[in-house]
Structures are given as C-alpha cells and as structure tokens.
C-alpha cells in the first residue's frame, strides 16, 4: 500500500525508484502500473476522442456491388441457420448441396452461423455499415431483418435472368411482400407458420383453440408461453382481436400490448421464449404456447402428447429469405444456388428433411416420391384452406420498429 507515494519520497528515493523501473527485474509495482494504466486510459479517453467516435448513417453505403468473381472462382460462402439443411446419415454431408456442386462445379462453403436474427444483425452490421465485405455471398434471415437490410441498401439487387426457376416456381403466397415488391432482392428459403402448440397431457382436459383461450383460461395460469419474436406474438394477438396484422394501426398495436400485459400481470403468461419453448412444452411445464409449426412437426414425432391447432382467426406466416449482401464476391454463383433450390427435386429433398413450409410450387409430386406423409401435410405444402388463413405482418418504418420493439420489450420485462 505504502510503496509508491511520490510526494513523500526523497529525491534520492525517487531516483532509485525510477532506476528500478527501468533496469530492475520485476521492479514495476502493480500499483504504479495501474496508475499509469488509468492515466493512459483517461488520456486516450479525453473528451475530444469521444466526439470523434460516431456511427455513420446506415444509408450512406456507396459501392454496393463488388467485382463479381463468379466466373473465375467457382465457390460461394453461404451462411444459414442451424439445422436448416438436409444432412446424410453420417451427419456431415449435405446431399442437396453436394448435388449442386457436382452439377455446377461451384464449391459451397456452408456455415451454420445464424442462431438469432438480432444477434446476426449485430454481427454483420459493422462491416455493412462501413461498406465492407462480410465474407458471405448468401445469407438467410427472417422477413423483418431482410426488410431492414433492403431499406438500408445493404443487399444487392438480384439479376432475375439468373433465376428462371425461382421466378416461375415461387408460391403465389410469397410473391410480393410489401417490403420487397416483386422479390427484387430476396427469395424465400423456407416459410414459417406460427400456430398454437399444446401438450395434451399437461392441458388435462382443457381445450385450447385460440389465443383468447391461452390468455383467459384461469386453469392454465402460469403455464402459457408466448414467443419473444415480437411479430409472432403480437400478430397472433391482433388476429385474435379481429385485426389484420397486414394493416393494423398504432392504436391496434397498443391494444394488443395491453391485452398481453393484462395476462402478464395476472401471472397467466409464464415466459416469452425463444426456441427453448420446445423442451418446456414436451416436459409439460408449458401446457400451451404460441409456437413455430416446423418445430411442432418434429416434436410430434418424438412426443405423442404434443400437437398443434390453427386458430379460426388465422395464423401468422413469415419467411426466412436468401439475400446477397453488399460486396459479396460471388453474386452470380449465389443466384445459381438460389435458383437450384427452386427446382422441384432439390426443393423436395430439402422439404422432406426440414419440415417447414416449402415456398416452391410443383413440389408435391417429387416430395411424394420421398415421403408420402410430408407431401400431404398442409404445414409443409399448404392447401387452399391453409393458405387462406395465413397472414403476414406488415413492414414497419424505422420509427415504428423502434417504438414497437420498445413497447414489446417493456412487456417482457426488459
């Protein structure tokens, strides 16, 4: 403690100290170092430096495209979500990707590095905002994030002449979202239906058919889950209140929040969950919850008590979309890969494996060859009745997005 207090030391001592600092072994005391370190940090952090930092506007990214090296470099870097691709028995190869490489000679560097939209945005934002390459040629993100990336001008416009199959085979349902008219920048990878899932055993005879049943049945107090994805939870609530998620107003949004807040205050809603609701549901900790149909199809196979219901008021549909970020080096290759997955055969192979909504028309016959049940499952290939009940959440302006996310965060306690 008393080792280094310069004021009290004689000049000779100070000189000795200095010498020991320079020449001695292990002479620097921890305290003096800490002091020096703090001083240095403070100097660096001088007010001027603070003002120099700043985050540039999202839209000022010049030089959208990079030189397309597709012809020279037969490769592509594809970032996707985990477990979102067919896998062979060894668990290492992706047969549909391998077939693509065999046919085109384009090697695919396939990375499963997307776990969460918000986190992935945090990851790629610095490069894209600075107009730099992300090292990725193709990414897969959910509607609202795709909309944001397009709004910021951080993704490239697709060359439709490279996408003949995609252009022809894309399902009517997904053809022209309001955030990307005519699919100029994006094509869906898979569709996601948001439904109500339940555990029959945990319900113990209670019936759940709508969001109202979730929110109002006192017997289910503390055993109801909603999703932490704002658009899914609010969208389902809006539908239940007779509003259309494609056209709702600020007041409608506030009303939906208030309806959920009441249930939170009563202790009706146990949690707002990410993907981890699946284990809660199979264990029976959650009796019923808002859930993603693709998960439920898989859960059903393992636990017979789990099932789902589509409310009469309808259900939410969103998509995960393939986009080519700015400065991608292999744009044409990426477009060829998108187009490949819009051919019926690869699309069927994928659909048979991952159980989400297939966005490709004309897949049913191919899928039936692989898996008859999947071909007749309306959750994978929606029939007319299913398609009629499907709703999409309208795109939001930056201002709305911030305000709505903030209100939703308050609802979830953070």
């Amino acid at each position: 403690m008393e080792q280094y207090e310069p004021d009290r030391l004689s000049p000779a001592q100070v000189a000795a100290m200095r010498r020991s600092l320079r020449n001695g072994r292990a002479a620097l005391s921890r305290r003096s170092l800490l002091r020096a370190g703090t001083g240095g940090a403070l100097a660096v952090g001088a007010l001027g430096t603070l003002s120099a930092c700043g985050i540039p506007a999202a839209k000022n990214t010049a030089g959208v495209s990079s030189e397309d090296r597709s012809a020279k470099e037969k490769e592509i870097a594809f970032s996707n979500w985990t477990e979102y691709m067919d896998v062979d028995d060894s668990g290492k190869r992706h047969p549909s990707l391998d077939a693509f490489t065999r046919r085109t000679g384009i090697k695919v560097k396939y990375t499963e590095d997307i776990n969460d939209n918000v986190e992935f945005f945090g990851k790629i934002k610095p490069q894209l905002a600075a107009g730099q390459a992300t090292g990725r040629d193709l990414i897969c993100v959910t509607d609202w994030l795709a909309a944001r990336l397009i709004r910021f001008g951080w993704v490239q416009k697709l060359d439709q002449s490279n996408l003949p199959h995609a252009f022809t085979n894309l399902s009517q349902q997904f053809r022209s979202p309001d955030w990307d008219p005519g699919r100029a920048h994006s094509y869906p990878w898979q569709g996601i239906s948001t439904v109500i899932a339940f555990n029959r055993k945990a319900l113990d005879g209670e019936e759940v058919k709508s969001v109202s049943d979730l929110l109002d049945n006192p017997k289910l107090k503390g055993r109801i889950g909603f999703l932490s994805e704002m658009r899914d939870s609010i969208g389902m609530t809006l539908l239940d209140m007779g509003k259309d998620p494609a056209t709702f107003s600020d007041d409608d949004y506030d009303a939906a929040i208030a309806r959920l807040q009441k249930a939170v205050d009563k202790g009706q809603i146990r949690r707002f969950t990410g993907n981890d609701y699946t284990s809660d549901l199979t264990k029976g900790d959650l009796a019923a919850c808002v859930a993603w149909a693709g998960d439920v199809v898989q859960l059903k196979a393992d636990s017979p008590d789990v099932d789902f219901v589509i409310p009469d008021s309808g259900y939410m549909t969103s998509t995960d979309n393939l986009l080519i970020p700015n400065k991608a080096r292999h744009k044409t290759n990426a477009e060829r890969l998108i187009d490949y997955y819009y051919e019926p055969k690869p699309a069927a192979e994928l659909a048979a494996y991952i159980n989400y909504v297939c966005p490709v028309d004309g897949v049913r016959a191919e899928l039936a060859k692989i898996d008859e049940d999947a071909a007749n499952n309306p959750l994978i290939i929606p029939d007319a009745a299913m398609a009629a009940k499907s709703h999409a959440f309208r795109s939001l302006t930056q201002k709305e997005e911030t305000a709505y996310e903030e209100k939703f965060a308050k609802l979830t306690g953070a």
Partner: protein
Amino acid sequence: MSTLTEAEAPPPTAPVPTAKPARRRGRWTPYLLLAPGLIWLVVFFAMPMVYQASTSVQTGSLEEGYRVTWHVATYWDALSEYYPQFLRSVLYAGTATFLCLLLGYPLAYLIAFRAGRWRNLILILVIAPFFTSFLIRTLAWKTILADGGPVVGALNSLHVLDVTSWLGLTAGDRVLATPLAVVCGLTYNFLPFMILPLYTSLERIDGRLHEAAGDLYATPLTTFRKVTFPLSMPGVVSGTLLTFIPASGDYVNAELLGSTNTQMIGNVIQSQFLRILDYPTAAALSFILMAAILIMVTVYIRRSGTEDLV
C-alpha cells in the same frame, strides 16, 4: 539487480572501451515483457471503453447515423426508467453471493483441512462443471426444477413452496420462471468462483496456529472465529467479488430460468442493444452498472479491511 550491476560495471575482462557504448541489455526488457499485456488491455479494454463512453452521449438512429451531441440526459433517462432492474440485479447477485459463501465456505474448509487424499478429487469435482458450456448447465436447471419433477414435488409436499410463495420468491406451486429459480441458477453457476479463492486462502493457514489456539484453551468455535475466519478474509473478499461482479451483469439465468418479473439489468442492456437498437441507452446502462459495481466494491473492500486479494 544483476542486470543493473552488469550495465554499470562492465566485467574487468572487458576490452579497452571503444566508441561504441556498452550494450544495455536490460533497459527495454520490462517494457517488452509488458507489451503483450498492455496491448491487450488497450485494444480490448481501453478502446472499447472509450467507444462505449462516446456511444452513451450520442443521439440519432441507425438510419440517420449517430452523432456525439453530449446528450448526457440519456444517463438519467436510463436510470429512472430501469432502476427496478438495477435494484433487482443487485438483490439477486447479492443473494446468490451470500448463498455461495454459505455453501462454499464449509466445502472449502473441508477440502483444505479434512479432505486428506480426497482433496484433489474434490477440487476436480468443483471445477468439473466448467467442462460443459454455461448454457447447457443453466438449461439443466430447467430439468431439475421442472414443474412435475421430484424437487418441486418434494418441496410442495413439505409445504416449503407455500412459504416461499408467500414471500414472493416463487409463484404458486412452481419454482421455474420465478425469482428463486434465477437465484438458484446464479448461485450454482458462480459457486466455483467462491470455493476456489476460499480454498487457496484457507489452505495457506498454518496448522500450528490451530494447535496454538487449542493450547490456549480456545474451543473449536473460538478458534474458527478468532483464527481461521480472520485469516481467510482475503479469500472471502476475492470470492465474493468474483461471484458478485459477474452475477450482477449476468442475463442468461434470468433469460432461461426467469420470467417477465425477474429480468435483470443485463437483459435490459441486451434488448436495448440488439432489439431496440438504442445504442446510447445500452451504453449508458453499461456505464451506470460499471460505476455502481465499482462504488459498491470500493466501499466493501474498505470496510472489510483487506487490500491483498488471495
């Protein structure tokens, strides 16, 4: 000081001094040795801190960009908006730290003085949970505390949950998604950070001091109170710090084991930063948290009267 001697007094066998000065080997060595650590500190601590400090006084939006406008009010707004989560973080982390001390001290004592040849095995068992990921360990608590599970069943039949429910620690006949579950998770996850420093400082106590205390007619309790515990204070202080500081910033436990009324300040920062994209508020909250922890820790160290940790 050997380098010093060499530098100042060249060996007698040295040739006649030439114009070239003697090589002063030691001069830059300490700085060179320090360089990796210092560079690390500057790049991964000082620079991010400056960047965050700057972010916290900026205004703007992602679309228009952020500019430094010295909008210090962000701090006040953030604090007045989210003080419940701050208080909750301190409360949960404090409780978890206290529980860790309560559980960890006897175990560290046992390992240090009574374990004999089992000592290494028990130490390995203390560290063993670190071989799996933090996330997996936390998720495991969802199975342990599951509504229909044996733990909750036993607590229910003993009517323990009626008491905790009355205290507001649990809700109804469940533990998951309540404050109790979050505190359990925090306690479990940070327990090794308490045990290890406690063990190192207990293990260092000279056994003869205990004998001396016995010779002076101290009862075992007095020996512990007057000899063992005061000597283990450095371990207690560093253990509580190593537990409390990360626990108060943790958000995983509250996220996975908690509910809407158990969100901690870490959850708020995460949601501000990633979801709402309000970087200034997120940065301000981080700084407030850092300042709060720094103040609490300083007061605590002053009070506990120990400066050398471990």
